[in-house]
């Protein structure tokens, strides 16, 4: 058996020129094409995702805004615009305190969300662009990325001003009715006391009459 020797540099060069180099180039070209195709597909997916989110966000009847970790509003939906009267250009980038004037309350709610991850139905006053105060039921969700890093909040708002107004009206009506009933009860109690007094007096009078009758009978007997 002959001794195997390493190919000479010339042989290697010829081999690489004939097969190696073009083959590597082909592989690189195929890989590049594949990466490019993948990138294009990802871009299309991202564009589709953007469109989907935009459509969904526009459709959603619930007012929603996205708030970043330093409590700046970074995105809003159409329902938010309708509720607050602010256009995206006016409110995006502003502090969340701009729409919640009693800012200590919102700070407390956000702090609470940090611990619980989700806070539901907190009543809070929202100040619209026209400086009108609305009572909203606020839902806050803490946002985290894949690695668990805190990246902000989602805020959902439902206008309950009308509901609260209705509730207040109902409460006022109940109070008024209760007052009326109380007055009636008092009146009845007064009447009861009065009638009871009369009855007692009648009993006393009857007793007195009876005693007088007895006295009279006695006197008649003596005569």
């Amino acid at each position, binding site marked *: 058996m002959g001794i195997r020797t390493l190919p000479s540099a010339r042989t290697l060069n010829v081999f690489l020129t004939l097969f190696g180099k073009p083959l590597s180039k082909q592989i690189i070209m195929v890989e590049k094409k594949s990466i490019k195709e993948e990138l294009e597909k990802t871009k299309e997916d991202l564009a589709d995702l953007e469109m989907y989110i*935009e459509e969904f966000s526009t459709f959603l009847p619930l007012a929603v805004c*996205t708030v*970043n*970790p*330093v409590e700046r509003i*970074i995105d809003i939906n159409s329902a938010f615009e309708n509720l607050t009267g602010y256009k*995206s*250009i006016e409110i995006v*980038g502003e502090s969340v305190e701009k729409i919640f004037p009693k800012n200590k309350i919102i700070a407390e709610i956000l702090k609470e969300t940090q611990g619980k991850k989700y806070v539901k139905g907190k009543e809070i006053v929202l100040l619209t662009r026209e400086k009108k105060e609305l009572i909203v039921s606020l839902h806050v969700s803490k946002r985290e990325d894949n690695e668990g890093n*805190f990246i902000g909040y989602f805020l959902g708002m439902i206008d309950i001003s009308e509901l609260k107004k209705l509730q207040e009206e109902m409460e006022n009506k109940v109070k008024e009715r209760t007052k009326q009933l109380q007055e009636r009860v008092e009146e009845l109690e007064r009447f009861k006391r009065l009638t009871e007094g009369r009855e007692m007096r009648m009993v006393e009078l009857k007793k007195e009459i009876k005693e007088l009758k007895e006295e009279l009978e006695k006197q008649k007997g003596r005569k």
Partner: protein
Amino acid sequence: MSLKEEIEKTMRIKGKGIGGAIQTHFHYIQERKGEEGVKKVEARLKELGYSLDFRKLKATERVPLSLSYLVVLVAREVFNWQDSDIFDMGNNAPKYSFIVKMIMNYFLSAKKTFQESPKYWRKHYDVGELEAYKFSEEGRYMIIRLKNECPPTICTFYCGYFLRVAQYAIKSEKVTIEETKCQNKGDSYHEFMVKWE
């Protein structure tokens, strides 16, 4: 430099940026000047030989950077906008971008935003270089440097833009920006100083 000269110079600028940038320009025009305004800018662009339908652009698509700059210059010309308008246009641009909204989530603090800014630039453009030069929490300022060829109008646009990015990340109602060095004035880079109280 006249606007005509600015446009000519702009169209010689190389490099590409994301289509989303052009979309944000048009969103701003639409917001301020309505659909009529958009049509005016499109018509002027056509006159200059650039037919552009921003609605057909994809946010991540790479388009010539010069085209993005051109839209700003044409809007300036068509509406006779002043520096304050261009500043406002730049300041509002991050509000419209889907990509910016996604990236913004990860700007957890002023310092983090500052550190991440070079990456942020590269996500948008394949030319130029943004350097996070200096950040002082105590001094309440940061300096970013940008090596990038752009017309003078765009310096004003970037001032507004970088200010908005800073406003997103800094919890202060008083954040200001100033271009302290400018490539268009003979410096080797643009330098922007952001201060806050």
